[in-house]
């Protein structure tokens, strides 16, 4: 899979490149700012680019250039997979990334690169059109919705499952992570969806998006 990397810190850029290449990805180009990223995308679009990994904060203003570049890329190619990395996560930013309503979006804390396996899984999931939301974002959303809300009627276990669903994990991932059987996971999800009033017919990425939309509403 061919990806672009935008990260202004030289050491991190080199490290990220090394990491994804050792996991079998091809880094088409690694740049240090948002403008160069868009230029690289245009330059390599013909030969095919499968996704981009970008840092939120880059020159010149060091605020949210990466986020805006990600949105711009998805404007140019709807559903273009972007994995946005940040030193801290903000559910507002997650909302802007998800606002297009389609998958292929990831938003993770930079710290997550420490767990190489999880990080690479997340990147693959995003490139496949899935979603990868940082647990921190989900925690922010859940704590914001912890008022008088159907979410309060969830059991602790159901809340765990809900968090993992919202992060974009598949049933298999969830069953592995929580040491549950596949049918157990399915049953939990069915309960959660009926308690929250969501349609159980949604599956896959649509299920994730529905969950995130619910949490953000």
């Amino acid at each position, binding site marked *: 899979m061919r990806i672009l990397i935008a990260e202004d*810190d030289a*050491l*991190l850029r080199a*490290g*990220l490149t*090394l*990491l994804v290449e*050792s996991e079998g990805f091809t880094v088409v180009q690694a740049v240090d700012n948002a403008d160069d990223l868009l230029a690289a995308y245009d330059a390599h679009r013909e030969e095919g680019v499968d996704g981009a990994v970008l840092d939120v*904060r880059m020159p010149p203003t*060091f605020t949210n250039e990466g986020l805006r570049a990600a949105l711009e890329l998805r404007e140019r190619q709807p559903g273009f997979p972007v994995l946005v990395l940040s*030193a801290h996560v903000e559910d507002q930013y997650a909302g802007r990334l998800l606002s297009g309503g389609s998958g292929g979006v990831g938003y993770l804390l*930079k*710290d997550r*690169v*420490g*767990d*190489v*396996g999880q*990080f690479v899984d997340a990147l693959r999931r995003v490139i496949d059109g899935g979603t990868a939301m940082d647990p921190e974002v989900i925690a922010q959303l859940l704590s914001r919705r912890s008022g008088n809300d159907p979410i309060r009627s969830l059991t602790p276990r159901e809340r765990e499952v809900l968090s993992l669903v919202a992060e974009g994990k598949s049933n298999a991932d969830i069953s592995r992570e929580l040491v549950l059987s596949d049918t157990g996971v399915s049953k939990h999800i069915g309960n959660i969806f009926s308690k929250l009033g969501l349609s159980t017919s949604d599956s896959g990425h649509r299920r994730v998006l529905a969950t995130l939309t619910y949490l953000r509403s």
Partner: protein
Amino acid sequence: MTVTTPPALRRRGRDLRYLALEAVSWPASMALLVASVVVLPLAVLVGGRTGGSPTLDVVHRLALRAHAAAARLATDRRTTELPEEAAASLGAPQTRRNLWWLVLHATVVFALSLLLVALSVAPVLYTLAAPWWWLFPDDVPMSLAFEITSWQRAGATVALGLLYGALAWVLVPWTSHRIARSTLGILEAPRSEVLARRVDELSVSRAAALDAHAAELRRIERELHDGAQNRLVSVVMMLGMARRALESGATNALPLLEQAQDAAGDALSGLRTAVHDIYPPVLDELGLGDAASSLTSRSTIPCTLDVSGLRRAPAAVESAAYFVLAEALTNAMKHSGASRIDVALRTERVDTEQGEAEQVLVVEVRDDGHGGAVDDGTGSGLTGIRRRAAAFEGDLVLISPAGGPTMVRVELPCGF
């Protein structure tokens, strides 16, 4: 043998000199009053509210002189400095005060001053001249207060002179001080106006302090984010990759561990710098003088330091001075091309606009480089220095002609 003048007489001499000067400057104020009456309406007609400014300038200069003279006399009264430049507008409060003073000076002040000068001169003239009345021919007798044709009349003249003298003795100090106090009272802005201006200045400096504080927080956040935080991300990334390599039985994990260790080392030194920059511990322990010496000793250009006139100041001010110095030294090292830097830190007493003495901490950095430094507000070191100074109501003076040398001088009021 020296003759010492009695203080009472000396004081009256000074008061009389003041009155005489006020009387002598009458032609000028009368001429200006006439000029103002004639010129100002026309100038305003032609040039609008700022049309009469040349005339107003001259009035202001005259007012400044009168104010200074009055302030010297009325030493018991707290005085406020007048603005150095005349307000260009006719409607400005100071302009109105100047014109009001001009009217009084050309009329009442002049009349009183002249009267009292005459009252003081008359006794001398009368007592010295009257005894010589007999030298005058009979048909043109000596005439002072009245014609003197006999010793009785001469005696009466001397008596009258002594009476005038007694009157002058009492009236000269009283009148001169009344005039001086009135002059100050008319020309100076009322206390409320001074306070209002002070409030404006404080609001501005408070806003600057908040801005500087916010800028400082942003700077610290940037430094931590770009330094330690990113390095630590690298550390966990390298460790993660090493672990993955080891788990998969690969043997090439060592370079990754080495990189992780290097990145951790970088993170530590970045943290050390950031922590130091928040508040240099050396300031607390050793005070500004020694902290400055550790800065100058790190300079790559030979640097002298003079802290002989330095006293302790509030921690916030010392900290600001420390960073101003650090910034100025960095600037000099980066841009000046100098071969020598001289640094001086000292505490000075200055008089404020309110006439109170205040301590200021002065940071002075001179270099013999090629000069041409400008504070163009583009986020250079100088802008940072100016912002820090402004936060303490301080000033930055930059003298840097092309070709050098450069002097940066920052004054930080210590608030007492």
